């Protein structure tokens, strides 16, 4: 049911939704970390880093990633260049 309309309005097929939703939920199940706890962890990390170097909080990406059956916390934190800092 709905295959034609799904295609017409460009919405996702159900298998794709299933996989994406499972990917998220399994990471949280495996780490026993709720999305709210992860947000709190991110905030603490940002605060700690900001005490030492200047960063743009909006550009920071911190999340859980899967590698086989292992999970890792991956942080991508762009650092502002000294020149830009002076200019700003």
């Amino acid at each position: 049911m709905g295959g034609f309309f799904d295609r017409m309005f460009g919405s996702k097929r159900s298998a794709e939704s299933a996989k994406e939703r499972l990917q998220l939920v399994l990471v949280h199940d495996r780490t026993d970390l709720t999305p709210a706890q992860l947000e709190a962890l991110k905030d603490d990390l940002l605060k700690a880093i900001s005490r030492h170097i200047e960063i743009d909080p909006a550009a920071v990406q911190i999340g859980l990633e899967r590698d086989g059956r292992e999970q890792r916390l991956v942080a991508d934190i762009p650092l502002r260049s000294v020149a830009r800092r002076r200019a700003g």
Partner: protein
Amino acid sequence: MTAKVVTITSGKGGVGKTTAVANLAVALAADGKKVVCIDGDIGLRNLDIVLGLENRIVYDVVDVIEGRCRLRQAMIRDKHFQDLFLIPAAQTRDKNAVSPSDMVRVCDELRPDHDFILIDSPAGIERGFRNSIAAADKVLVVTNPEVSAVRDADRVVGILEAEEKYSPALVLNRLNPAMVKSHDMLSAADVLDLLAIQLIGIVPEDEGVIVGSNRGTPVALDGKSRAGQAFRNISKRLQGQEVPFLDLDKQEGLWGRIQRLAGGRK
């Protein structure tokens, strides 16, 4: 001879554990192996009826553990195979009547005279599951390509890996190739990517499985059944043979092809 103890579990109920045990048991027995199945679902006896042996039960596994009978007396011989036996679950007791060490003791007594001991675990991750995996050399985790079943399978795999002495392998049951093709069912590749464990079998959805249960004659005995073929392949892999996975698309019947060409979906 020392038997390999294989426990079949799943986390979620209703994904086909008991059917898998019954089919693997007859497939192994058909290859001439000496097999005992133990129904580990105390209080919810089921493997007897799927194997068609429900009218022959006198003693059960709790009778053995509590010393009311000898092990041999609780072993029911299969209708088709001389060397296939069932030890049924107790129906009027609960899972606390059995401990993990009881299961280890029963399996140790069976090991010298058999090739395979298959244990049908109850759903869940509690006492009955713990009892069922206590003696396992190999654990098969059965799942369906559905979000709830995959999530529960992941929990079970996590528990097994945390204990480090089990090597879980996946049985993906009730895969519907037509739905996978139309992207309305998780594919085998999707499920494997999510669970990241070894795959031991993919069983296509097949009405013959229910017909087999109705008759007490597992579908693995039907040479023409695709699900039966899938179970026979898993039994070969348990015996250490390398068997290629079924190409489910290629085996799609004429009717499936007509439906696909007509653009219709079930």
